């Protein structure tokens, strides 16, 4: 909110400092409001509220000083940043956390889709944040990177991360070994990545694959 400030007030010499100062004052106000019920205690028996209160006042003071300095000393302007990129990154992260395993937010429960879906979703949504994004590159990257992650994190390091969608795990026949399914699907994905790579003839991914 503060980053979009377009003030051209008279005497304002450092818009960046003004925005920063306002941000600090808001943090201080929020803290004081959140900790209003906490007992500050006395100096000889500090309560849980004392330090947050003291810090909030100090932060607020810094904020006021910054706001004042914005009118006294000239400083940097506020760059108008494009918010689209950062928001897509956040969206990608949220999409990952919603799909990696079942997550209940209020009345809604997301289906647990596992690493094999969450990583490509995060890579493709996140990748779109760049102005130079090319969708076929991102598809290729996710096809190459997802199996590497599956092999490194779930197979070699044995971290307890769900790999497949829950619905899919249920239809696997009992006798099948989870690890071999993982390895086979990883190989299939890598093969698919290599195929797309050769059919689209874009040499950008060559280095990527080796770095894994």
């Amino acid at each position, binding site marked *: 909110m*503060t*980053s979009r400030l377009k003030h051209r007030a008279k005497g304002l010499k450092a818009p*960046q*400092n003004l*925005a*920063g100062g306002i*941000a*600090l004052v808001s943090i201080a106000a929020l*803290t004081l409001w*959140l*900790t209003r019920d906490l007992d500050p205690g*006395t*100096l*000889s*028996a*500090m309560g*849980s*509220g004392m*330090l947050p209160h003291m*810090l909030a006042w*100090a*932060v607020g003071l*810094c*904020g006021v*000083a*910054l706001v004042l*300095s914005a009118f006294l000393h000239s*400083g940097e302007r*506020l760059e108008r*940043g*494009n918010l689209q*990129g*950062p928001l897509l*990154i*956040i969206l*990608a*992260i949220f999409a*990952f*956390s919603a799909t*990696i395993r079942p997550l209940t937010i209020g009345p809604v429960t997301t289906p647990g889709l596992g690493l094999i879906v969450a*990583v490509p979703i*995060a*890579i493709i949504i*996140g*990748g779109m944040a*760049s102005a*130079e994004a090319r969708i076929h590159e*991102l598809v290729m*990257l*996710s096809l190459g990177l997802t199996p590497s*992650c599956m092999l490194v*994190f779930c197979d070699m390091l044995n*971290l*307890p*991360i769900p790999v497949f969608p829950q619905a899919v795990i249920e239809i696997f026949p009992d006798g099948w070994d989870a690890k071999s399914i993982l390895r086979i699907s990883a190989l299939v994905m890598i093969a698919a990545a290599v195929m797309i790579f050769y059919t689209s003839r874009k040499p*950008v991914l060559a*280095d*990527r694959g*080796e*770095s894994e």
Partner: protein
Amino acid sequence: METFLSNLSLGFSVALGLQNLGLAFLGCLVGTLIGVLPGVGPVATIAMLLPITFSLDPTGSLIMLAGIYYGAQYGGSTTAILVNIPGEATSVVTAIDGHEMAKKGRAGAALAVAALGSFFAGSVATLVIAALGAPLTKIALMFGATEYFSLMIMGLVLAVVLAGGSVLKAVAMILVGILLSTVGTDLETGDERMTFGLIFLSDGIDFAVLAMGIFGVAEIMRNLAQPESRDVVRKPIGRLLPNREELRQSWAPVVRGTVMGSILGILPGNGAVLAPFASYAMEKKLAKDPTRFGKGAIEGVAGPESANNAGAQTSFIPLLTLGIPGNAVMALMVGAMTIQGIIPGPQVMTGNPSLFWGMIASMWVGNLMLLVINLPMVGLWVRLLKVPYRLMFPAILAFCCIGIYSINSLPTDVMFIGLFGFVGYLLIKCGFEPAPLLLGFVLGKLMEENMRRALILSRGSLSTFITEPISAGLLLVSVVLLAAAIIPNVRKGRDEMFVE
């Protein structure tokens, strides 16, 4: 002297164990691999790789983390020389002459001198740490709650004074960091503070989540806004071994840089940052023909690189002996130690000598490994440098998500790196640096605890901080330094130093 040697031999017996040797190697390799990527500095590298080390035993995980740190630093120098994109403040100087050398087809010599100089500096710094560790720890063990609180204040003040940029903004960030550390259940009273009634916040904000958010994710958001212009050297790397003339020119700068870096790194603030700048300025002054600097003078690579590495290593001294992290990397180390159940401070050396000395010995081992890894693998690093950012950051993003999820298996942790990333991005836009925030955050809990204890002992009298002599001295130093940083004249000199 005898204890010094027996301590070191204890350290080497730990560090040269097969598992720890492997971890140091892995750390150096992965650290270089990530650190060499343009736009990814050591702090982001460590923040990103932190989760991998959590499943190891304390000694192993710290050895690996230290390896990652050196690796990332070396990787950063490589990027600075070959692409002219310094990953962090300390390799800015290397980029000046290093990149010029690379343009003239002498990249190999620049890389080799940087690596050899850093190895020499690292070896000396390891000895310095080993020599100073024990006496400093003895002093620190005399400290009570009052002195500790004041010491932490001094550490934070020094961090502010020695960093570039606005003093006011840095102070504000430290305060916000301490404030963030108070989120969660208060250990003394059991009250929930600022948790919004959310269960996963009642344990407080997870350190790894905060670090990865404000360093990893925010960094990606910041880089996205900048159009990519990369100046990868097209010339061949050239001969890797420097010739006799180059060696003759660089040995003295290496020695001087090492001395300067070792001294500056010991300061409890972020003195290590100044080391390469100071070394570059000194070499320029001492040179017979200063005009060569900026046009590919090998002294301009050898000196600062050695100073950089020596400083990076001796900045472990305040952390290991006093428990005071001087910069963001050390703050990450504190976080990693705390997660392993080790409270950094003088008690580490007395209570856990094999960890303390093992880590110190592994520093030297790590430096040696970097020499072995880096030089033969330069070709691979060069190819990595050509990966465009638009493909690099989605991969980094995916690693961050998987890494943070693997710690607690909590999807909410993953969401929080997004939120903290965005907050960090907005703060950067407002001209705040995220590093002081992290410093405040890691020291916050200890500060509150020590302040509480000191005030209980003094029966609620704040004057205890200035009537106790050691504490008063520490606070006096802090006030003088802070005042000096604000006084215009000194400030001008300081800013000039950072501009250069």
